[in-house]
């Protein structure tokens, strides 16, 4: 997925697909810490809920593909495209 942002004369392509591996690595790094925190606070039963929540959040981000917001008037232009 790629994001295009334009505000007035400034436009920028953001390759979001390059962020997913970084986020995956960060998630895997933080997962043991989250598990330890849950075990300490006695909420380990919620572990699967955290896993499901992560996948649902990823699904939500993927669902935004195709989003298009374009606002123009005589003074300014604002665009966000998710392709």
């Amino acid at each position, binding site marked *: 997925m790629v994001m295009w942002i334009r505000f007035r004369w400034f436009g920028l392509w953001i390759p979001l697909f390059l962020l997913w591996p970084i986020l995956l690595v960060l998630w895997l790094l933080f997962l043991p810490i989250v598990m330890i925190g849950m075990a300490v606070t006695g909420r380990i039963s*919620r572990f699967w*809920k955290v896993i*499901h*929540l992560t996948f*649902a*959040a990823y*699904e*939500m981000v*993927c*669902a*935004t*593909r*195709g*989003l*298009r*917001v*374009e*606002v*123009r*008037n*005589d003074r300014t232009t604002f665009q966000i495209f998710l392709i």
Partner: protein
Amino acid sequence: MTSERKQILEMLAAGKVSVEEAERLLQLTAGGPGATSVDSSAAAISLRVSDPKFIRIMVEPAENSDSKKDQHHVNIRIPLKIVRAGVNLASLLPGDTGKMVQGSLLEKGYMSDISKLDSSALDELIEALQELSIDATVDNHSVKVFVE
């Protein structure tokens, strides 16, 4: 009673639109708050695309508006997948967070309880969206909401 008003009331009776949506549509057809002028052909509700992918909101200056200064062009395309993914995500939110989301929705005037929105209700909601198409004139701008 005009045909548009009758159609809106029929849709409400059939459960295709909520009370709030029906009220908003009736306001549009009656030229209520938020709508400066809507002619009978402008507020149209009709059957649309069978397998919609996006909700489209378009605002364009009306053809008869001459001042170019306050002309706004808005083109928003929202994937319908967001609705389903959003409900899935909301159903997994912890209790307190879910209550906060519910409270914020109530503040904005959305009376429905998202935690009670199951897959069948969601299918009905998306099905109802397929049939909705709004075409109105507000503040010298033509506003169109439809699915595609």
